[in-house]
Structures are given as structure tokens and as C-alpha cells.
């Protein structure tokens, strides 16, 4: 994969998001370096997922600026579909297309958007399936897969678009405990390969081991930010201490 195009593929400054008269994101700024893995932790309802969904405009932010690979996505009239091709997203509930088998799930976007020929899209799809260890499921339908397998297929589907950035929205929260490991393993490999990643997660072990930087969000604000060591071993903010005492 081609690297080093932008020093900071993700740049967010002073982002706000309101749902009606409720403010769910309050003045978040974040620059993510190429190849950096940022984990966002925090209690539910703290705005973590909303923040992630603002980055590819699944949610429209109210105020502030988001720049992905030098394209200002918050500017009206921007070709958002083109930006989204460069950002892979993995959802809590997998969201595999249930009317298609695994191979067609993986090939739909690359073929439909003409970023690859049918032939090369198929090759990429098979390679990605092998990478997530599911080559034998190529013609299975989503409802024939376990949760862990679905999520690995979902990761492979996002990778088929050869994204520069991967966003993970609580990728293991809907999984049975015994399947969490296989998904995290794939994500670790991806991180080791130098993928730029933002991961919203409740897996503190993963954040501690894989993240370059951890953000603690509560009430729509980033309350504390630092290396895993700083966040988990020397938490400063009382709310973070309280949160960690509950989840660890």
C-alpha cells in the first residue's frame, strides 16, 4: 500500500455537533498522523461514535472543520463519495449486505464505482478474505456466519476499497466474548501494517497494547489525551479515574 502522502491524513479543528438543542460534541480538535492508531474510550453516550461518524459525514457536524487527505469534507458541495472511498468504516453491527454473498459484499463497491475491473476486484477480494482468514467463506451468505466472522468480512470489505484510513465504531461490542479475540487480532495486524486508524472501543486491553494515542471522551468533550501508558497508568482527570475503576 502506498504511504506517506500526507503527514496528517485526518485533521479536525473545533468540531461541534448538535442533535436538536442537545450538544453532543463540544469543540474537539484532533490531528492524526499517517500510520497512527488512535483509540477513543469513554462511557456510552459520550459522543465517541458520533464523532467518528462525523469524519465521513454519516453525521453532519454543526460547526468546525474536518480535513481528510487535504480535502475539506465539511465544505458544502464537496464530493463526499470520493472522500468516503478513502475511508474504510467498520460498524458495531457489521452491516454486511444481507442480499449478497461474501464475495459480492466485497466486490460491490470496487466494481460499481469502477475503481477496479471485475477481475482485479475479485483478486483483491480473495486476497483480503485470506488476510482475515476466511477464504473458505467466499460464497457464504452473511446469516450463515458467526458474529466474529461477519466482522472480519466487514473489515475485508472496507479494505477492498484500498482506504488510507480505517474507522472502527465499537467493532467488538456486539460480539460474543469468545469471538472478540479473532477480530482484534485482524485489527492488530492492520495496525502493524501501518494503517491510519481511529478505533472507538471498550476493549481497554486492545487500546493499551495497540494504540499510539488514547483519547478519553465524556459529555462530548475530550477530557484527557495521551499515550496508553499515561492514560491507563497515570490518569489525571477524576472522571477518567472513575471510568477506569469501573471498566478495568
Amino acid at each position, binding site marked *: 500500500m502506498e504511504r506517506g502522502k500526507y503527514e496528517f491524513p485526518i485533521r479536525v479543528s473545533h468540531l461541534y455537533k448538535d442533535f436538536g438543542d442537545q450538544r453532543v460534541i463540544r469543540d474537539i480538535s484532533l490531528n492524526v498522523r499517517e500510520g497512527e492508531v488512535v483509540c477513543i474510550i469513554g462511557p456510552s453516550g459520550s459522543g465517541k461514535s458520533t464523532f467518528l461518524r462525523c469524519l*465521513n459525514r*454519516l453525521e453532519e457536524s454543526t460547526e468546525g472543520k474536518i480535513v481528510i487527505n487535504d480535502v475539506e469534507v465539511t465544505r458544502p458541495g464537496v464530493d463526499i*463519495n*470520493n*472522500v*468516503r*472511498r478513502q*475511508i*474504510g*468504516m467498520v*460498524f458495531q*453491527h457489521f*452491516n*454486511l*449486505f*444481507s*442480499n449478497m454473498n461474501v464475495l459480492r459484499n466485497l466486490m*460491490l*463497491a470496487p466494481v*460499481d*464505482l469502477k475503481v477496479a475491473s471485475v477481475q482485479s476486484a475479485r483478486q483483491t477480494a480473495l486476497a483480503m478474505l485470506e488476510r482475515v482468514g476466511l477464504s473458505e467463506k467466499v460464497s457464504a*451468505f452473511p446469516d450463515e456466519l458467526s458474529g466474529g466472522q461477519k466482522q472480519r468480512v*466487514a473489515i475485508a*470489505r*472496507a479494505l477492498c*476499497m484500498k482506504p488510507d484510513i480505517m474507522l472502527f465504531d465499537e467493532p467488538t461490542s456486539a460480539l460474543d466474548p469468545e469471538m472478540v479475540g479473532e477480530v482484534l487480532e485482524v485489527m492488530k495486524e492492520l495496525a502493524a501494517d501501518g494503517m491510519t486508524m481511529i478505533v472507538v472501543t471498550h476493549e481497554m486491553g486492545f487500546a493499551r497494547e495497540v494504540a499510539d494515542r488514547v483519547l478519553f471522551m465524556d459529555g462530548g468533550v475530550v477530557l484527557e489525551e495521551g499515550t496508553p501508558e499515561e492514560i491507563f497508568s497515570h490518569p489525571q482527570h477524576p472522571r477518567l479515574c472513575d471510568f477506569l475503576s469501573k471498566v478495568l
Partner: protein
Amino acid sequence: MGKIITVYGPLLLQAMGHTLLLALYGLFFACIIGMIVGIMSVLRSRICRVIAGIFVNLIRGVPMIVLAYFVYFGVPYLFNTILNMGGVTLSALQAGTICLSLNCGAYMAEIIRAGIESVPAGQMEAARSLGLPYWRSMQRVVLPQAIRTMIPSIINQFIITLKDTSILSVIGFPELVNTAKNVVSKTFMSFQTWAIVGIMYLIVILILQQAAKAVERRLKNGKRKV
């Protein structure tokens, strides 16, 4: 009973043909109207949703017999007498087709809206997150899943519409009920005539229901192949 069948059988069969023709025309346009209005009602555009909502509620709130009189007598009167434009006439078949299309179209729109809304929002989000445009996502991901849940209701609506053609006897279209009325007024054999007419409807609808079951079965079994 025998006399009705031997003497008026061909006439009643021909009338059944008219009923089926009217139903077919009505359903054809109803599908188009239903598709357009149904999709309008799930769009983000507020104007589209309001227009779709007004149409559906208006049609559902007016009995079809009133709609039939309005289209067949009221609309030509409006053009010819009130607006003085003259020359506007509708045949009973044209008026009947318009009524059925509007009526069935409104219900089809609701079926299609409900079908689209039954597909989890995450399906659309996943497609959009890969960079697929809205319509492409609709076409490739959402609609194929929606149609599967819609088919039983659509076939049910077809059956209702087929029966509703009988209402259009009031504007003089020679469909089955209208023709049967004439037969009764000539023969006074109302028991025999209406029994035969009832059985004729029943046979056609039973055939339709069997076809519907076959389609549903195929959808269930063929799910893997779709």
C-alpha cells in the same frame, strides 16, 4: 342455473374479461404511482415527503365510489361546463383505470414505503460509507432487500384491487357486476346469477392466491440464489 350458464355464460365470461383488463390496466399504473410516491416518502427532501403524504391520505380518505363519480362525471363537468373548455370526455374504461390506479397506487406507496423502512438503516450507511452514491445504494442494497418483504403485501393488494373493479360498475363499465345486474334485470334470477358471479370471482382469486404462494415459496427457497 342452467339457463343462466347456457344463455348468459358467454356474456358473463366476456364481462370477466373486462374486469381482468380493467384490473390489469389499473395495477400497471398503480405500480408506477406506488413506486414513485413510495420512494418520495422515504427521501430526505421534506417537500417530497409532504406531497407523498398528502396524496396517500387524500386517496385513502375518500371512498372509491366517490372517486369514481368524481373522475367520471365531475372532471369532465369541470372542464366542459365550469371552465368552458369543451370536448373533454372520459370513457368508462379510462375513468375506471384512473380511479383504480390512484386508489391502488396510494396503498402500494404505503407498502413500498414500509418495505424500504423495514431494511435496517445500517445497510444504507454501510453502502454510503464505501462511497456508493445514494441511488446506487438504494438500487443495489436497500431495494432488493425491501422487495422481498413487500411481495406478499403487493399480491394481497392486487387481489383487493381486482375485487375493487366491481365498484366501477357504478360508472357503467361493462365489467362483471354491471353485466350481472343487467342479466338479473332481464331474467329476475338473482340467486342464480349472483351465485355464479361470486363463484367466478372466487375462482380467479383462488388462482391468484396459489400463484402468490408459489412466488413466496420461491422467494424463501431461492433466497440463496437472489
